[in-house]
């Protein structure tokens, strides 16, 4: 992958999440996850619905819905985002830490003009006059390739297509000086033909600005084409992580292997395809995951020991971790770096 050799400064990760727990009432939905997002890297967070991906993103942004609480830490620029108050968060949010949402149809204010919505971010974070903010907003809308950007400044969201609206949402996320852009399933609600355009746009813009990207998706192909690193989430835990190509070629967690096997491959010259592989069972509801390894009730390798809490094991150069008692492609170089809570 060509992107792997992009600027690697040693300023440390742009975001370091440790022991993040998100609880819905008293039931934990995210059960103590830890990961780093290195500066300038694009990291994919994959998993099925209900695995806790969105809650992870919202807790980093400080945008959890009422009734949900996050503990642990999410360190950005020396500050724990989870303990900042609303005013402190608002200085960071929208400027250094931005988010692209899943639903472009509802993410924009229906009664406010597009141009004003983009200009607003600039006015919040920069000391810009109304006219300067407008100019900057127009430049941003051009950068995200919104067709007829100048005249669309005065349009309302309902006058735009889904893909165009998502471009506007991306413009919002780029209006500041984002160190990290979190994109939560940014293309799920869009037509297939538009999806690729939006993803490439997001990747290119993040690359140009040397912003890190945390891309949340359930689509492995998206991660494979956009992200350098991948985090695999299941049942509120990160069960495997590492460089995308490495993880996809040699998955070590049975769940990751199952996910990859479930992707239908379309290859030319093949008359008949084998049946689609599936992971048996379905994702349990909140609070209904088994104790110990969260995947053990669906795992073909599960044994008695899986009833205990699996440890997170890293390889020698610490690029890959897996949390499993029976990892696939087992090698002797696994060293224990951390015990899952």
């Amino acid at each position: 992958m060509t992107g792997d050799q992009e600027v690697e400064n040693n300023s440390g990760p742009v975001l370091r999440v440790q022991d993040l727990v998100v609880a819905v009432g008293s039931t934990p939905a995210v059960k103590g996850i830890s990961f780093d997002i290195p500066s300038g890297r694009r990291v994919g967070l994959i998993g099925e619905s209900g695995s806790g991906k969105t809650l992870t993103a919202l807790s980093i942004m400080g945008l959890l819905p009422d009734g949900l609480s996050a503990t642990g830490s999410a360190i950005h620029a020396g500050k724990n985002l989870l303990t900042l108050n609303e005013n402190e968060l608002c200085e960071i949010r929208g400027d250094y830490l931005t988010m692209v949402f899943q639903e472009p149809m509802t993410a924009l204010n229906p009664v406010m003009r597009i141009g004003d919505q983009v200009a607003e971010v600039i006015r919040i974070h920069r000391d810009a006059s109304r006219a300067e903010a407008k100019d900057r907003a127009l430049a941003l809308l051009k950068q995200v390739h919104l067709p007829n950007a100048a005249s669309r400044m005065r349009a309302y969201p309902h006058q735009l297509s889904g893909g165009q609206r998502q471009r506007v949402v991306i413009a919002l996320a780029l209006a500041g000086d984002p160190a990290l852009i979190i994109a939560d399933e940014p293309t799920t609600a869009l037509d297939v033909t538009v999806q690729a355009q939006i993803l490439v746009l997001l990747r290119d813009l993040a690359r140009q600005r040397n912003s890190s990207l945390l891309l949340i998706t359930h689509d492995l192909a998206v991660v494979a084409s956009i992200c350098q690193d991948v985090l695999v989430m299941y049942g509120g835990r990160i069960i495997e992580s590492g460089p995308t190509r490495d993880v996809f070629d040699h998955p070590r967690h049975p769940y990751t292997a199952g996910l990859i096997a479930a992707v239908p491959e379309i290859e030319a010259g093949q008359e008949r395809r084998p049946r689609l592989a599936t992971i048996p069972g379905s994702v349990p509801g909140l609070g209904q995951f088994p104790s110990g390894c969260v995947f053990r009730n669906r795992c073909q390798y599960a044994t008695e020991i899986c009833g205990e809490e699996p440890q997170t094991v890293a390889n020698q150069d610490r690029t890959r971790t897996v949390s499993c008692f029976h990892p696939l492609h087992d090698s002797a170089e696994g060293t224990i770096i951390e015990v899952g809570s």
Partner: protein
Amino acid sequence: MFWVLAVLPGDPASRILGTQATPENVARLRQDLGIDRSIPVQYLDWVGGTLTGDLGTSYVTQEEIAPLITDRLKVTVPLAFFGMFLATAVAIPAGVFAASRHREAGDTAVSVLSQVGISIPAFWAGLLLTTYVAVKWGILPANGFPGWGESIPNSIKHLILPSVSLALVQGAILTRYVRSAVLQVMREDYIRTARAKGLTRQRALWRHGLRNAAIPVITILGLQLAALLAGTVVIENVFVLPGLGRMLVQAIERRDLLLVQSTTLIITTAILGVNLLVDLIYNLVDPRLRTR
């Protein structure tokens, strides 16, 4: 409306002349009033008159109806608008405040107060206000209406207590609608987007929430205003105001059918007017309704 009144039992002529009237006298009066004619003929006559601005004369008092109604409107319309103005002025800040303090003490306080406001019948609120503000403390006049021609400040004074009584109930109901509209809007995705842009919860509410919350609230405002234009009867009776509602009740009692008919027509027109106004305001607030 015309047909309902026409088939209603109770003959205006015998009502006017009383029980001692001879059948000949009744017949003559019926002829004078024009109610001996067939119903379709009466209807066409009435429609023709109405379209030219002539609402006819009252069966009972022989007065011209059009100026009679105009005079009454001069009391009812200011009363309804003033009442709604007070209700809105209290309800919008109270509702927004409650919503922004959702599940906190302030929210509970507003909810309890609005529940009390809804539970109090308007006439009782009127009586209480009269007793204390007017009779015991003597700050404002208790009832009656001098007429705009007499003295404008004095007329306004006479409308304050009735307006407050109306505003109390309407404001309490409106507060609840405002609160739930704002709560609804605060859960929308675009509020989350606004906060992700770096707006605090409060500023997101002000800049993005209120205009969206206004859409359902305007509907309720329109309904309430229409209801007040049609139904300030009780309050007009409590405060002895010469309003449209009071006249309507009296006209019904006296079988003054033509007056009932015309008053109803005016009220209906007013309600349609309010609805039209609401639609126009929708268009201003919500760009999605504007056709391109």
